[in-house]
């Protein structure tokens, strides 16, 4: 019997590393050790078990958009602190940290580019920026990117990776669900294709709005996709969740995802899908 009882559980290191740095990296799924350059060549998937590492907009632009064709838009929009929100840290310092950690200006990057020669309006979330949380900026950038699609009649491609709505903007974040859905309603009425790509993780208000509303919903293998987070569900039902629960394959089985596409085939498959709308 020890003299002191531990009052809190040990700190457990998060097993999912968002972006590997250093020369070597270890696959969180199968523990395979890989050269960083090999990992990059494999589009950030494990060469042994095909585990898909979490990546951000910079990587997805390189993977999906024709070289040299991407032009970022709306990069001047920045989050402010409308509610003067302070929890254990104030919101402005979380924004600064998010910027440092991710190298991007907010939880979404938007722009225009080409996929195998076909112009698209492209939006991609950055999970490294405050958990990819959706606030006013994310909502506004989605609105403008979708509006570009509507005006130019080009497909709208959106890659989601988010823990949900951004708490620090409270109800304003919540309203972005309705705002993004409103512009998607316009796209839908004008028959402009909208393709939603769900990556690890996509949860909360993002899943419950634009991420689920694609004419085609594509998921990456193994991506966590759901409304409530797994921990919240476990607390509610007081049971361990079954293996594979809320993973892309589970959503496919239950009918909420059209197809699962490996990152290495994503560009070609996306291109095939876009061409269907034109031919």
């Amino acid at each position: 019997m020890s003299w002191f009882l531990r009052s809190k559980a040990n700190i457990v290191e998060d097993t999912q590393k968002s972006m590997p740095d250093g020369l070597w990296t270890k696959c969180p799924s199968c523990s395979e050790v890989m050269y960083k350059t090999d990992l990059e060549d494999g589009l950030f998937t494990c060469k042994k078990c095909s585990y898909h590492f979490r990546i951000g907009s910079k990587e997805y632009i390189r993977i999906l958009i024709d070289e040299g064709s991407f032009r970022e838009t709306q990069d001047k929009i920045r989050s402010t602190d409308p509610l003067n929100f302070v929890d254990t840290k104030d919101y402005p310092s979380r924004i600064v940290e998010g910027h440092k950690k991710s190298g991007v200006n907010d939880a979404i990057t938007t722009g225009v580019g080409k996929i195998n020669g076909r112009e698209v309006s492209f939006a991609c979330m950055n999970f490294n920026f405050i958990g990819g949380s959706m606030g006013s900026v994310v909502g506004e950038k989605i609105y403008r990117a979708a509006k570009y699609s509507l005006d130019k009649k080009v497909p709208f491609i959106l890659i989601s990776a988010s823990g949900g709505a951004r708490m620090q903007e409270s109800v304003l974040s919540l309203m972005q669900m309705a705002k993004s859905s409103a512009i998607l309603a316009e796209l839908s009425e004008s028959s402009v294709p909208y393709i939603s790509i769900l990556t690890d993780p996509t949860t909360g208000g993002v899943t419950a709005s634009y991420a689920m509303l694609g004419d085609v919903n594509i998921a990456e293998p193994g991506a966590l996709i759901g409304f409530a987070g797994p921990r919240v569900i476990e607390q509610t039902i007081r049971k361990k969740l079954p293996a594979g629960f809320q993973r892309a394959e589970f959503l496919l089985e239950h009918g909420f995802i059209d197809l699962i596409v490996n990152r290495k085939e994503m560009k070609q498959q996306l291109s095939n899908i876009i061409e269907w709308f034109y031919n």
Partner: protein
Amino acid sequence: MANKLTFDFEKPIIDLEQKIEEMRVLGQQIDISKEIKDLEGKIEELKVEIYKNLTRWQRVQIARHPDRPNTLDYINNCFTDFVELHGDRKFKDDPAIVGGFANFEGKSVMVVGHQKGKDTKSNLYRNFGMPNPEGYRKAARLFELAEKFNKPIITLLDTPGAFPGLEAEERGQAEAIAANLLLMNKLKVPIIVIVIGEGASGGAIGIGVGDRILMLENSWYSVISPESCSSILWRSWDFKEQAAEQLQLTAQDLLKLKVIDEIIEEPLGGAHQNPKQMYDVFSKVLAKELQTVSKINKEKLTKLRREKFYAMGIWQE
């Protein structure tokens, strides 16, 4: 009055009320009616002082009062000829969302709302007002029915959130809410949304897109409940008061943030203190709002609704 749930911040009022009761007993022997009258006047002053200076957390507590009028209470007291329609015609009926045909001041309307219980038994039946996907899909079915027959829609929001359960995820809780957001942005009939109690997150907005968004004075509407916010950001359940302050979730806050159009005034101390008065005010405001939106041309209405949401959010550039 005896078994009614009261809050800590109401204790000074309760204490004074008890004192008056004691004096009344005493008053049967000697005449102290003047003292009683003075004290009653003091109670009224105290009530005004306490209830006009509620903190955000105190309002959250009032919004959750078990005797607070709920959706069916409003339906039964402000509408007539209610015909409840059940089920999503896909999977099952969800008692956490109710809806159906009703008549409001001579006109047919579709009314849909979250439904909480009043006690443990009814709350278990209503799943504490936490809908499953079939609840949102039932709402969608009723919205489409209203659209087909050109009747205005009224939705009443009162939920601690969409149910975070295993089966809810299996059946696509997120998809059900998302589909409703899209649908409500496409409908051409007028939609009036009223937050009557708790408006927690996606579970609330899942039936909350409309032309006019109103809130009762002591209701709350936010991206997350103060408790969950405390547990996530402070990693403890103990910061709910601070979380409520930070989230700025009251009707007054949302009016300032231009998220809602109007606040519906409640009786002093909350809707549960005087439900009849509440129903009267509710009906008056609803009648006025319905008249306003019904005048707008149908094509324009949907456009204006979308523009209303496009304007929401604060950023810099």
